[in-house]
Structures are given as structure tokens and as C-alpha cells.
């Protein structure tokens, strides 16, 4: 079953190569994403029942536990939403001749290659192969970022490739140190095996492990958008086509964070709740939130603003993981889920806005309620949501995280975080609210939604985040608690 999960995107890519008509390609894309969702649902059920899934084929590489399945489910669901949205989006782009059929094919091929590498990173036990897959996600998405071939897009793509590749190379150095710290403790067939490393964590050599952690944090943190390695993120997320921005913000950042969480788990199991790891993660997280807070006020491009918001939320997750109490890790994982859905909703709506107004600048967009009523509602509610307003889900998870911080009696970080969240909310409101109201709309555009499938998806996502803000289903709660147990170590 697990291998079918990995095989589906590969088959999809092959089919995209073979089929030429765009209707078939749209159909294959939606079908593939639905099949992925079904398989993921089955796998989730298995994980809830059996706690982990392991196959011994190919040297026992395939491995899913509660932590992996949470991130995997997010990938698959957002992938599904994106593929439905892409149909309407790409049709509109074809109509305005921003693309041709060949580029459409390349789009789908690269998108499913990207999804494949992301799934690969989440379903392996061997940290080395996880690294290879995460590097491959950079490569698969490089041309997606530079898809539109304009000057800005190419600059964003170049920065993305170079910064992320160097960052990931530094993570590889950290992984080598990790392997080095396990010489003499593990046999060579078990090198870089996460479960083996985790179980023997106490015997790993301390200082080398610390060095490994720093390098891996810098490396995977580059990919996750933590400051000060975040400089590629605003460019890449704003220049990519909107569905791709969604995938990157909602899926890729989580994948990198997943890598960091795995390593933090090993290290905390080895040192026993070390202050060293915690302090560094909290510092990096706070730095990210501060960076986002400062830069949000000066944004003129709404997609860049959303990208900075991603940096902020990744910072919050880092802070949550840094505190390393059961409550804070629960909050962190819950925040991962909620942020992904909310940010996807926002990016998909922004795609609608871009197609309607043909500009990325905030100052040029006015009177959105008249032109795009549904999108405007969703976008407005989404901005509230991402700022942390009840009853949406981000509020719930941020509440959990902040309670966990105050439970640790760390009033400084807690108070600072609340202040920064308030500043960010103000920033978003001040910058964005002009676009909704007003009567003077650009005259050459006609009112009405363009992308009907897309509108359905964003409304669907709105429903999800509202429900999750009020009620978390028990299975999900159980799954996250299991994941917390895995990270802390039974």
C-alpha cells in the first residue's frame, strides 16, 4: 500500500508525458490527487490502529508513524485542493495567452514530481534518503518558481536554488556529524536509521551531536524559512504561480520543519530536555517572528506579505518545538496543520485576485467586494484567521502554544510573542484592508468570479479552518498525541 502511494505520482508524471490533450491532463491530475487522498486515508487508519507502518522491503526503508502521517495528510489534502484549483487557474492563463500547451504539461509534470519527492521525504526511515528527497524538492520546484520567465521570476528562482542548495548542503554536513557520533554505537547497516538512532540516543557522543544539530538546524531551517536564512522565501513565494505558492507554503515548509523535528527528537532523547537545543530553537523562532513583524509593514505586494506571514508562523512552530513540553509540541503540530490550511486558502484566493486585476501591488487593487464577492469574503476572513482571530483554527493553536509557554513560567518569551502577534495583526490590517472596499474599480474588468473550481476549494478550506477552530475530532487529537509521544520518547 505504501509503495502505491509513492508510485501514483510517478505514474502521473509518465502519463503527463504521454498525453497531449489538456483535458486528459487535467483529468489525470485530479484523479491522481483523489487516489492519493484515498490511499492516505487508508494509511491513516492503519497508523491509528497499529501505531506505525513498516515494510521490510528494500532494506526496511519505508516507515510511517503518527508524526509522518500528519504531515503526509496535509500534503495530500492540499495537493488535492491545488489540483482542482489549477484547472480553473490554468484555463484562465491559457485564455490570456500567458502560457501555451507545452508549458502546461511542464507545469503538471513538475508539480507531480514535486509531490513525489515530498512524499518520499515523509515515508523513509533513513535520514540520508530524507535529505536526498528534500534536496530533490528544491530542484523539482526550481523551475516552478521561475515558471513565468520574467526578470523577477528568474531572479527569485536563482536565489531560491542557490540559497536552498547551500543550506541543504550544510544540513548534509550536519548529517555526516550525526553519523559520526554514532560510530561504535550502531552497526553500519543501521547508520542514519531514525529509529535506531532514537533508541540508542543516550550513547551517542555529545559534542558531535550538538555540532550536528546546529548544522542541521541551519540547513533545514533555510528550507523552512527560519530567519536569518529566510531571504529566498518572499521572492520565491511571490513570483511562483499561485497554486505553486500554495504547495510551497503549505507543504514544503512543513516538510523541512518535519526534518528538524526528527533531529530535535533524537537530541532531546540523548541529552534529556537540554536547554541548549531549546534555547537555540526559541531564539531562531523569535527572530523569525520579529523579522516578519518588521517587514510586513513595508510590503507593497500582497503575495510577499503572505510569504512573510509564513515566516512568522514557522517561527511560532519553532518556538513551540523549542519549549519541548507535551503541550507545546501538541500546539506546534496543531499549528502546522492549521497554518497550512489557512495559508493555502489565502494563496489560492490571491491567485484569483491576481487573475482578475493582473497586478500584484496592493495599492492598485480596490473594490474587491464588487468584483469578486466570494473571493473577497474568503480573503478577508482568511486575513483575520492568519492574524490569529477566533473562531478560526490558527487562534486555537496559537492559544495552545502560548499557554504552554506560560506554563513553563517563561513570561518574557510569552509576552514578547503576544506583542509581536499583535503587531503583525496590525500590520496585516493596515496594509491590506484598503483593497476590499471602495467604489472605483478598474473599468476594464467585469465583476464575477473566474475560477469556479478554485472558488469551491477556497470555500471548502474556509469551512475546514472554521470547524477546526471550534472542534478537533478525537482521531486527530489521538494522532497528534501519539506523535507527541513519539517525539518525546515514550
Amino acid at each position, binding site marked *: 500500500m505504501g509503495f502505491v502511494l509513492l508510485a501514483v505520482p510517478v505514474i502521473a508524471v509518465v502519463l503527463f508525458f504521454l498525453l497531449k490533450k489538456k483535458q486528459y491532463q487535467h483529468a489525470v491530475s485530479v484523479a491522481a490527487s483523489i487516489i492519493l487522498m484515498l490511499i492516505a486515508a487508508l494509511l491513516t487508519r492503519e497508523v491509528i490502529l497499529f501505531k506505525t507502518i513498516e515494510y521490510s522491503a528494500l532494506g526496511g526503508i519505508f516507515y510511517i508513524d503518527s508524526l509522518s502521517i500528519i504531515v503526509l495528510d496535509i500534503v495530500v489534502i492540499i495537493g488535492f485542493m491545488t489540483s482542482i484549483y489549477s484547472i480553473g487557474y490554468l484555463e484562465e492563463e491559457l485564455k490570456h495567452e500567458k502560457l501555451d500547451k507545452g508549458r502546461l504539461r511542464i507545469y503538471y509534470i513538475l508539480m507531480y514530481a514535486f509531490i513525489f519527492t515530498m512524499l518520499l521525504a515523509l515515508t523513509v526511515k533513513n535520514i540520508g534518503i530524507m535529505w536526498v528527497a528534500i534536496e*530533490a524538492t528544491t*530542484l523539482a520546484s526550481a523551475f516552478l518558481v521561475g515558471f513565468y520567465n520574467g526578470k523577477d521570476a528568474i531572479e527569485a528562482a536563482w536565489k531560491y536554488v542557490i540559497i536552498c542548495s547551500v543550506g541543504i548542503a550544510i544540513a548534509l554536513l550536519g548529517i555526516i556529524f550525526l553519523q559520526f557520533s554514532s560510530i561504535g554505537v550502531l552497526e553500519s547497516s543501521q547508520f542514519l536509521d531514525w529509529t535506531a538512532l532514537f533508541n540508542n540516543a543516550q550513547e551517542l557522543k555529545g559534542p558531535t551531536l550538538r555540532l550536528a544539530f546546529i548544522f542541521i538546524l541551519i540547513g533545514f531551517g533555510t528550507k523552512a524559512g527560519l530567519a536569518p536564512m529566510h531571504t529566498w522565501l518572499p521572492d520565491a513565494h511571490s513570483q511562483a504561480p499561485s497554486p505553486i505558492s500554495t504547495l510551497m507554503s503549505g507543504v514544503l515548509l512543513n516538510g523541512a520543519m518535519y526534518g528538524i523535528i526528527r533531529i530535535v527528537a533524537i537530541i532531546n532523547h540523548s541529552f534529556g530536555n537540554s536547554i541548549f537545543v531549546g534555547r537555540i530553537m526559541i531564539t531562531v523562532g523569535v527572530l523569525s517572528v520579529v523579522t516578519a513583524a518588521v517587514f510586513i509593514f513595508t510590503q507593497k505586494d500582497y503575495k510577499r506579505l503572505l510569504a512573510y506571514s509564513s515566516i512568522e508562523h514557522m517561527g511560532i512552530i519553532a518556538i513551540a518545538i523549542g519549549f519541548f513540553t507535551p503541550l507545546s509540541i501538541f500546539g506546534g503540530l496543531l499549528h502546522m496543520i492549521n497554518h497550512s490550511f489557512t495559508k493555502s486558502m489565502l494563496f489560492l484566493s490571491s491567485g484569483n485576485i491576481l487573475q482578475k486585476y493582473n497586478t500584484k501591488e496592493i495599492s492598485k487593487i480596490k473594490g474587491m467586494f464588487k468584483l469578486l464577492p466570494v473571493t473577497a469574503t474568503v480573503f478577508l476572513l482568511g486575513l483575520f484567521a492568519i492574524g490569529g482571530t477566533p473562531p478560526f483554527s490558527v487562534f486555537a493553536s496559537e492559544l495552545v502554544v502560548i499557554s504552554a509557554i506560560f506554563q513553563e513560567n517563561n513570561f518574557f518569551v510569552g509576552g514578547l510573542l503576544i506583542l509581536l502577534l499583535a503587531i503583525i495583526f496590525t500590520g496585516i490590517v493596515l496594509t491590506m484592508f484598503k483593497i476590499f472596499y471602495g467604489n472605483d474599480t478598474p473599468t476594464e474588468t467585469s465583476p464575477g468570479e473566474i475560477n469556479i473550481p478554485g472558488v469551491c476549494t477556497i470555500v471548502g478550506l474556509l469551512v475546514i479552518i472554521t470547524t477546526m477552530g471550534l472542534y478537533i475530532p478525537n482521531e486527530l487529537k489521538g494522532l497528534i498525541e501519539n506523535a507527541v509521544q513519539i517525539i518525546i520518547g515514550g
Partner: protein
Amino acid sequence: MSNYLDALSVLLLTSAFMLMGNKRIKSYIKTFRLQSILIALLTGIMGINSLYNDGNVDILVVCMVVIGIKVVYIPFLLNKTYENVEYKVEKDFFLNIPILIIGCCFIVVFTYFSLSTTTGINTGTINMQVVNSISLILIGLFFMISRKKAIGQIVGFLVIENGIFVTALFATQGMPFIVDIGILMDILVAVIIMGIMVFRIDEKFGSTDINKIKDLRG
């Protein structure tokens, strides 16, 4: 045998210095090729050694793949990219070359002092080999920062990967086989992608000077 490894590791460091002192883009590619040949030799020696001792051919296969990709194919790709691009020599730098070379010197000293105070690494004679390889990584990073042309940055990235590969070889007798192959494939695809992007940058911006592509800020 560890004598040969020591000698090769120091020659690798020398090739990094030679790279730093260069101004012509064609020389970057040639020096990278020389470095890859040294790494292939290193892998080959370790592979033959492991074949005698343990009887597994993993490292030798990796050596072959290294030769195929890093010695032959990647310099070929870089040369093709280089032909399509305007500038052949880098004319100006932020800091001039002697200062960069002395900077490399500081990097090696710094690496040595950092590593010698980390227990777990400073056991036995692994010491200088690991210092050399980690200095290679840092010098690659330094090279990448100090060059303004896009191909220079690609070569810097490749040197970083070279250094990491050699560190893995020295510190832990290589990573597991699949991981090694995966890393090499990744680098190959990365270079292909970067090559195509350099070509597009040259098309759109008219030159590959990275400092000129600064439209997106803040």
C-alpha cells in the same frame, strides 16, 4: 595507506587555494576538474582498501560514479554554459585576491581550533584529514560569496559538495551506498538546473553579474 590519504587531503586543500587565486572562469572549471580527479583517486584508494578488508565493492562503485559525473560530465556542462555567456574573466572583486587567500588561511586555522576542542572528533589521526575537508567546505562557501559571476557561484556550490563528500569519506568511511548515489544524482540535477538558469539570466539581464539582479528587495 593513511599516508596517501593525508597527502591527498592536503593536495585537495591546495587545489582549493588554487581555485581561490583564480580570475578566469575557464580556470575555475579546470581546477574543479582537478579537484574531482583527486577525490576520485581518494575514493578509489579507500574502495580498494575496503575491497581487501571487507570485500564490498560499494565504495569502488561510488568512485566510478564520481569519475563519470564529477570529472567528466559536470565540467562538460559548465563549459557549455560558459560558452554561451559573455564574461570570460572576472575583473573586479570586493576584496582583492591576496586578501581572499589569507582569508582562506584563517579559515583553516579556525577550523583546526574549533575541531580540536570538540571531543569525539579529535581522536587519533583523523584530525588533520577532517580539518582539511571541513576547511574545503568553508573555502567553497567563501569562494561562493566572493565571486560576482553566476558560474563562480555554481563552482563554489560544487566545491562545498566536494568537501562534504570528502568529509563523509574521512570521518565515516562514506555514507550508506544509496545515500551516496542519491547525493551525486542530486548534484548532477542541481548543476543542470543552475546551468539552464544562468543561461536565462544572461538572456534576460544581459550579463551574469549577480550584483545586478537585485530588483526584489525588502
